[in-house]
């Protein structure tokens, strides 16, 4: 037992040493100036770094972070969205000369696995942790530990609203609600005439891979609310049916019987492509469906898979169903180029990854940082080549 206590104290001391910014990666001996009994310093980040703060880490990285190591934990590796984020992280790390270690669970649903990884990352005592949390609540305890140990955390992709004060230094995330609305804003005008001229109710389908994570649900609700708002502005009534969560949490669920526009929300039992495809094909198969929205890469690809059989998607509202997607990847990009998919909203995972490392380095250098909101950009076949869009379209 004695040994364990000693080990704990030693590691605490080590953390303190590292944070004090002496930059020494030697794990062997705690620096003499950090007495073993010193409590993990909560105020450590406030301490001035011994090393001179780098002026612009982005511009002059090599000098800045030579010895820093960061742990980056993504939500999963399932979609190329995360591949792009990891690429961004690695690029920036190389540029700044810092060490990063990227991990992530196999699936976004493996919450417990991610908590284990986070705990592990904390135990490895890095200079900072970049976290894309699968769940807003599951990480709170670990964040408290990180805070106690003085390890700064930067959230990316998704924020953690209830995080203990001071644990999360900055959040690099997209406003998902707004991004979902962006999709509606771009899809609605294309369908506007058809909705206006329709004699019977028309249907808009939405496929969400789940109804639990903040990012997916916000996008889904953002789309629903915006679409409903635009339709009502044109004097149409809207009803939302399908998955209970989305129906109950949208602004106005309306009445299916009397509605002109029905938004149907489908959520598969698990976040796999084949189940998303099954759900999507049911909606695509309905005669009154005119539009579809898939709120992330898996869901959007599910819609495209379903269309392989049905062949109802296209860009002409008169003869086909228009589908909007989310995120990029070769499948979605290909579908947009070939006119199967009307368009999609992309975030900038590459930039998000880069920014995360940049901010972590800044924190380690003792600079103050603030949240960096990233955006969702609408893209379709017309603007895919634009300079503002193209860099965000990863494979």
């Amino acid at each position, binding site marked *: 037992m004695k040994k364990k206590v000693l080990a704990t104290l030693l590691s605490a001391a080590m953390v303190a040493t590292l944070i004090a910014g002496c930059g020494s990666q030697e794990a062997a001996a705690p620096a003499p100036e950090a007495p073993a009994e010193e409590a993990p310093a909560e105020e450590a980040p406030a301490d001035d770094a011994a090393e001179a703060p780098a002026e612009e880490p982005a511009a002059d990285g090599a000098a800045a972070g030579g010895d820093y190591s960061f742990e980056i934990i993504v939500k*999963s*590796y*399932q*979609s*190329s969205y*995360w*591949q792009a984020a990891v690429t961004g992280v690695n690029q920036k790390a190389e540029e700044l000369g810092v060490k990063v270690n990227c991990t*992530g*669970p*196999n*699936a976004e649903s*493996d919450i417990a696995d991610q908590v284990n990884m986070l705990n592990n990352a904390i135990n490895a005592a890095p200079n900072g942790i970049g976290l894309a949390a699968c769940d807003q609540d599951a990480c709170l305890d670990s964040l408290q530990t990180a805070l106690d140990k003085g390890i700064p955390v930067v959230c990316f992709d998704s924020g953690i609203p209830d995080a203990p004060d001071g644990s999360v230094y900055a959040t690099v995330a997209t406003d998902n609600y707004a991004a979902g609305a962006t999709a509606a804003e771009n899809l609605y005008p294309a369908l506007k005439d058809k909705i206006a001229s329709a004699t019977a109710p028309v249907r808009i389908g939405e496929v969400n891979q789940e109804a639990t994570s903040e990012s997916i649900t916000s996008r889904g609700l953002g789309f629903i609310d915006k679409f409903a708002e635009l339709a009502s502005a044109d004097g149409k009534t809207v009803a939302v049916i*399908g*998955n*209970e969560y989305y129906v109950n949490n949208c602004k106005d669920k309306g009445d299916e019987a009397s509605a002109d526009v029905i938004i149907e929300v*489908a*959520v*598969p*039992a698990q976040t*796999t*492509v*084949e*189940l998303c*495809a*099954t*759900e999507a*094909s*049911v909606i695509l*198969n*309905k*005669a009154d469906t005119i539009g579809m929205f898939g709120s992330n*890469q*898996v869901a959007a*690809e599910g819609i*495209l*898979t*379903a269309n*392989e*059989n*049905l*062949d109802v998607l296209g860009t002409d509202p008169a003869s086909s169903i228009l589908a909007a997607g989310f995120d990029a*990847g*070769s*499948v979605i990009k*290909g*579908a947009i180029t*070939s006119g199967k998919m009307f368009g999609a909203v992309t975030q900038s995972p590459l930039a998000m990854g880069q920014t995360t490392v940049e901010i972590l380095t800044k924190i380690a250098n003792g600079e103050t940082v603030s949240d960096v909101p990233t955006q969702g950009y609408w893209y379709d076949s017309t603007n895919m080549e634009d300079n503002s869009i193209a860099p965000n379209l990863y494979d």
Partner: protein
Amino acid sequence: MGKNKSVISRLGGQKFIVLLVVIGLILFFSAVSPDFRKYTTVMSILDYSYYIALMAIGVTFPLITGGVDLSIGTGLICYSLTGGFLIVQKGWPVWAGILVTLLLSITIGLLNGVLVSVMDLPPFLATLCTCMITRGLGSIFSKGFGISWPTSGAPGSWFRNIFKITVNGTKIPLGFLWVLLLVVLMAFVLNHTKIGRYTIAIGSNKEATILSGINVRFYHIMAYVISGFFAGLAAIAYSAVFSTVQPGTGAGFELEAIGGAIIGGVSASGGFGSIEGSLIGVFVICLLKTGLPYIGLQANWQQIITGLVLISAVMVDIMKRKKETA
């Protein structure tokens, strides 16, 4: 009673009952949902059925030997990820990727066979281990990332046409033809070749089969190799039908295939079963998965109902047998 029974058993006993269940489900869904009656729906169901059906054909062999193969689900994903990784990331030609996929599947099948037959491990455990191993290997091969095999229209997407071609704007479910052909082929193998005969013999009485001077080791291994190989075929079907293969998935596919086989009349204790039966059993599961959304049920209700139908399908059989023996 006596006559009725003989008619049913001549038609294949449980197989026949399960076929009725399939027809019943189709009629029910068509009656309730007009969308279900569309040709495109048939296409979706078939698309969805290929990989489960292929796995079920393969896994019927280990099941008949009295074993089981739990590694086919995660194996499928592992093989598909490996092949896809080589094609997409390493720029290999598609045929080479497919070849590697199949070779890997045969290797894992061989490994299962050796563990079970030579090292004498309980099949359930041996394949549980390879299930974990393939799940890990798949992610490692693909470096943890999801892989999209070439999409339709893209160069190298010819393999998708194996399962579905478009003639004059109509999609033809070619894959179903292959599945049927494979069912006929494997039914022949099971009933009319040495491999099949000895597979049944091992499941019936392994000791006696050894004493008959048969190289039981070889044929026992073959059962698992067949199962592995069909998981490989299923991997190609899965990659051809669905866009992205995600690492970490696949656990659970094997339960659908094995469940289908057992519903289709394969004896859980070995020695008895048929390929046709397994195929019919698989369709019960596929119909439930693809049909229930059409009657407006949310995914969660679908799961509950699938569970209940599974139990009842087996219970009907148990009650029938109880009546017969009484």
